């Protein structure tokens, strides 16, 4: 078990070093990066929006319920929804969901290419397959996922508004006042650090799982599942470490 862990970590490091080699043809890598940006970004917009609106709504309702009858001012609900969205729910939950959607898709796509000998075909042509298959995905994810996280934070805040203001839990002015209170700009930095780190984790782990898949549909399924499970665990671990480092 321990040997396996070190073996896989070693293979992961070798793969990543090779992935950062000089591209054979920049234009081909750029084309692939744009395709991946479209896949990751546009392909995930609806799911991210849906999740974010409910997270914002649930957060607002939950805190409205918790603060009911206390001396804490009602406008704090807006403040809590905003900070929770920026610091935690937008980067972490969005990336956990993207690990399931984008990560499993990457592992299955690259794994399928391995099994159908597409990777061998590229190798024989002289293509550095780790670079061609992984680098564009990494760049695309690191650019697009922070944008999705930004959108998620906005939508979560809107979700909180929709869930509380129209039903009379608090007024529009109170919610907006909460949004404008106690704003710490550094939280935005933390959000982007998290988003970029999680994007790197979910992409590299998923590509690793797909790249080294062995033959058979069962193995492909396992690789896809492992991509999600390991990405999620590492994202949560990284979340803890980032918070520890940036707030300590």
């Amino acid at each position, binding site marked *: 078990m321990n040997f396996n862990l070190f073996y896989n970590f070693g293979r992961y490091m070798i793969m990543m070093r090779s992935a950062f080699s000089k591209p*054979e*043809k920049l234009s*081909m890598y750029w084309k692939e990066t744009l395709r991946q940006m479209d896949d990751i970004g546009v392909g995930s917009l609806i799911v991210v929006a849906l999740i974010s609106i409910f997270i914002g709504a649930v957060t607002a309702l939950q805190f409205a319920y918790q603060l009911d009858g206390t001396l804490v001012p009602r406008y704090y609900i807006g403040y809590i929804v905003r900070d929770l969205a920026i610091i935690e729910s937008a980067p972490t939950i969005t990336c956990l969901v993207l690990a399931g959607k984008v990560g499993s898709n990457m592992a299955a796509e690259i794994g399928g290419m391995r099994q159908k*000998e597409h990777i061998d075909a590229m190798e*024989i*042509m*002289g293509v550095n397959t780790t670079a061609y298959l992984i680098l564009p995905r990494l760049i695309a994810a690191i650019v697009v996922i922070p944008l999705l996280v930004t959108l998620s934070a906005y939508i979560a805040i809107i979700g909180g508004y929709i869930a509380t203001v129209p039903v009379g839990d608090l007024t529009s002015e109170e919610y907006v006042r909460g949004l404008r209170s106690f704003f710490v700009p550094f939280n935005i930095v933390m959000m982007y650090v998290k988003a970029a780190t999680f994007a790197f984790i979910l992409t590299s782990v998923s590509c690793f799982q797909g790249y080294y898949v062995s033959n058979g549909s069962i193995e492909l399924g396992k690789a896809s599942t492992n991509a999600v499970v390991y990405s999620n665990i590492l994202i949560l671990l990284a979340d803890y470490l980032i918070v520890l480092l940036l707030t300590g």
Partner: protein
Amino acid sequence: MIRAENIFKSFDEAEVLKGISMTFEQGKNNLIIGRSGAGKTVLLKILVGLFEPTAGNVWYDKRDFFALDKKAKRAIRMEVGMLFQGSALFDSLTVEENVMFPLDMFTNWTKKEKLDRVNYCLERVELVGANDKYPSETSGGMQKRVGIARAIVLQPKYLFCDEPNSGLDPKTALLIDELIQSITVENNITTIINTHDMNSVMGIGDNIALLHLGKLVWTGNKDEVLESDNELLQKFIFASPFLQRLRDAAIQHG
């Protein structure tokens, strides 16, 4: 010319290749035949550089492939074309884009130059007008031909074919054989074909090597196949009842 020199290959405890030495001549179809599990695919993957041998060398003319650095290996790979058993066409690309992929990746040609070369290759494999089709919209035979077009688009010096006729009807299989034969002769390239198709053996086998349980047990050409008294070769060639009956009939009629 490619030369394999005392190739051994093991996977964990299992020794798959046991000291294979052979030469694959330029301008000829060099066939590797043998039963499933004989080690043909492993040998082909070693020759093409996808697997590293446990021991032994592979020479591309005067270059010892496994002793070269990464850059030099990549330079050799630019001289190699390969047709895979399952064609290995990229699903998300059209026929034209598949064939153009090596040109896009490794040349600085203009779009027109690339298109001209792609169209020439598609014409060569009799697939004119199939440019915009996706692999999923083509038959197995067409996919093999697209695979050949992609393999020859960079004008390789060495062509590898892994079971080029598997899954094809006899007529299409013959067409693929004829294509490989003519491409080999016209371009004077070293072609290595991994097959257990008897029509290929008798049709285009300039040099034939029989592998059995990881060992080279017979070499010769298509004319020597029927005359050989090698028991393993005869068992392999005449494995099917149909061919056995043909052989018996031929013997009866002198």
